[in-house]
């Protein structure tokens, strides 16, 4: 009874605390040692956590996305040195791979080559995560584009996107149908990015990092492959045509009053006039690079030499 009564008054509590009872001491010790640990965990998580390193890999079916991911995976694992054969994907996968130490990173851009801390980096190579998506027409909306939307609008550092790789098959681009397919996918992707960039520009200050885009021209080892410059030209021309026909096309059913303005959205400059080029997108902060490479076809020399330039691009984003 007496102990219960003592809790009601301040002096009672104080008396209990200073009595030197075992439980009070235990609580005191717990707080003394626990708080610094908690504080450390809290601040370490929020401040010291490195910026996200997620990359999204998009592109039409058969461009070599899965082959690229398996190649990177095989490269970054010490055990197996042979990448597997691949088939059409149905689901996306997230892999964690390491950047080869020889590839320079964007964060080390201003350091001298003789900087001793660079050696540190060779010992623990930078890791980044790459998400491979299926490129089949039916799965693009639900997996590829949806993934892009969620990753680009995410506030969480763990899932935020750092860069976008759009893989194209440069050998098949000569074919009209493939080119149309590829370009329309790219158009949709860029449109999502543009909407994001424009929407953010209005509401808040420039807090979100830009998402750079790499158009990875795969299969450069083939005889019929187009060079990167030509790929760029072809895609720009095709997107221009898509942009034109989109602006004239029919509305979708069920479009209410609110949706109509979204339909008007055009890639590139607002009025949709003038020829489209990837340069136009730089106004809204989308940088598009076209770099050629080859997942397969690098003979006996060390594997993955064909994707070196893409890895360099990834390195510059990190």
């Amino acid at each position: 009874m007496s102990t219960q009564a003592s809790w009601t008054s301040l002096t009672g509590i104080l008396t209990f605390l200073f009595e030197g009872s075992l439980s009070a001491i235990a609580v005191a010790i717990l707080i003394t040692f626990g708080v610094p640990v908690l504080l450390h965990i809290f601040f370490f998580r929020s401040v010291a956590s490195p910026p996200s390193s997620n990359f999204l890999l998009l592109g039409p079916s058969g461009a070599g996305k899965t082959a690229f991911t398996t190649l990177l995976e095989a490269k970054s694992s010490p055990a197996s040195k042979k990448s597997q054969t691949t088939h059409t994907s149905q689901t996306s996968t997230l892999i964690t791979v390491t950047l080869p130490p020889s590839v320079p990173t964007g964060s080390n851009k201003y350091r001298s080559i003789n900087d001793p801390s660079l050696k540190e980096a060779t010992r623990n190579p930078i890791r980044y995560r790459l998400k491979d998506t299926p490129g089949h027409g039916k799965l693009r909306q639900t997996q590829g584009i949806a993934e892009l939307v969620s990753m680009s609008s995410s506030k969480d550092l763990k899932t935020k996107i750092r860069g976008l790789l759009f893989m194209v098959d440069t050998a098949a681009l000569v074919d009209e149908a493939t080119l149309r397919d590829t370009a329309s996918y790219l158009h949709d992707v860029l449109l999502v990015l543009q909407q994001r960039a424009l929407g953010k520009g209005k509401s808040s200050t420039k807090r979100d990092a830009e998402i750079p885009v790499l158009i990875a021209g795969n299969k450069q080892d083939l005889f019929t492959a187009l060079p990167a410059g030509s790929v760029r030209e072809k895609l720009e021309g095709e997107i221009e045509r898509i942009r034109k026909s989109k602006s004239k096309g029919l509305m979708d059913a069920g479009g209410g009053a609110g949706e109509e303005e979204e339909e008007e959205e055009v890639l590139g400059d607002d009025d949709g006039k003038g020829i489209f080029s990837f340069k136009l997108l730089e106004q809204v902060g989308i940088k598009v690079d076209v770099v050629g490479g080859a997942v397969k076809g690098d003979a006996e020399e060390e594997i993955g030499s064909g994707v070196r330039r893409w890895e360099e691009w990834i390195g510059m984003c990190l």
Partner: protein
Amino acid sequence: MLEAFEILTTSGVVLWSKSYAPVGAHVINSLINDVFIEEKVVPQNAATVSPVFKKEKYTLKWRRNKEFSLIFVAVYQSLLHLGWIDKLLENISTIFIDIYKDQLKGNRTRITTYRFDPYFEQQVRELEDNTGSVAEIYSAEVEGKKDPLVSSDNGGPPPPLPGFLKAQHQAALAGATSDEGTPPASPDTSRSTTPNHIITGKSGPRTSRRARKAANASANASSGDEHSRSRKPAKSTPAKKMRKWDADGYADEDDGEILDYSAPAEDGDAAAPAVEAVAQEDWGRRTGKGQFVLKELGEEVHNILDNADAEKSKDDAGSGVVGSGFNAIGGFFRNIVGGKTLTKSDLQKPLKAMEDHLLKKNVAREAAVRLCEGVEAELVGKKTANFQSVDAALRIAMEASLRKILTPTSSLDLLREINAVTAPTTKQHAPRPYVMSIVGVNGVGKSTNLSKICFFLLQNNYRVLIAACDTFRSGAVEQLRVHARNLKELSSRENVGEVELYEKGYGKDAANVAKDAVDYGAANKFDVVLIDTAGRRHNDQRLMSSLEKFAKFANPDKIFMVGEALVGTDSVMQARNFNSAFGTGRNLDGFIISKCDTVGDMVGTLVSMVHATGIPIVFLGVGQHYGDLRGLSVPWAVSLLMK
């Protein structure tokens, strides 16, 4: 024979593969595209365990594992009828998952090297021998070769028992697949002293006992001992010895050796050292061969399979009174809290409700049932998320399934395609008019939708020619003439496009009229030719057969079928019959669903038609005016269906 066997993940990585003959990657890719993604081909799995898919000259059978999202695919020539493929798929999936459980669970699934070849070889050999016709042919050959020699040799070798014979072929086959030229089967296969054994410890004594048994068996072979009759290849050891004994009539220099140990075998225990001596001198040149491993593998593999069977039967037996009581209570809580592994019985009721819901939305029964089956197959064995009820999980899965069906495989940008044809970018193709034709059942609104499309094209400044190829129903041409006059009036008012009607009266052959119209369009530099056809009942063979000729003559770039949103169950048959009416190699290119404004949210016809054929919906008719034509918005349709 089996051409190839692959184990791949749904993310597209081949984990392990074995091919006996080069099979192009496109064969399996088309399986994935047609069956798994587009669901174009409905696998007919009425009788067989594994569904079948045919591509070119190959037949593919597959088996999916949801837990690890793996697909096991077997490819073989369609000419052959291999009855054991089902069993092979089942066994291989069980074995593979059992062996590599840990690797598959971890995140290093894709980098692990799977040394699965010996297990696979063992299974193939075993199953082939048990049921394969190949083995029978082989055995006939062997016997044919052997018999005269046997009779000419040492008088009375015991007549080969059926069990022994079988095992013999097994051994012979094994020999055939091995890369060295050494005689495939000799007693040393049973030896456990070889360095590359997997389970060295316990196999030693067992083998020698078996060897003894075998020796005994060979001594009194005529008694028809049943020991070696078992299907386990583990017991193939005695048989292999037996084979040697038989084969000595075949190869003379082995003769003495064999007699050597068949004689002491009669003494029982004394047999073992003799066998060992032979083995010791033999194994030196035999190391690294699959055969040593073979026997142990057989045991291991059978253990795995037996365990799997036991698990299965345990699961079946587990649903006793007490078990079901606990399960029911646990299941009830998990239904609320989530994290429940879904079973068939959990899904039964919600699925029925979902099916009824779909039927209420005017989805044809066939399509609704198939959708529900697909969702069920997807959900069984899955765990629900935290605080997710079964209904919610089912709803999400159904939504995803509907969205997947309705989403077109390729972009449906009609204007883009017209431009590509009328003003090609490359010099290879000469510009020509883009030809579209419209087919459908009577009274669904073919002419109305044609004029709506025409209006849309006129807005985009195209020169359009309308061809009246309904030469059958009275008033059809006049109807189109009215439309053409209206459209001309409208376009001249807005100063866009141009339209003209091409008519040849009634009674002519529609295909010829269409062909003339296309020629006329090309000569007069029209951009688009729109062909209207007579309405026809889809189950009238006589009327439908003329469509094939029509498709050949007019050769349209696009054939659209108009279907009413009002139609119910019949939509499936309509879509199917029209889709197959144009002869081989030509299908419909899209649907136009008319009268969508009259059904409210009962837009099930959309799903039924696409589900039956895998052909996308291009336009929706949503009103009486020329401008009431819309593209399909998949989220809109799905939300209406799930409301």
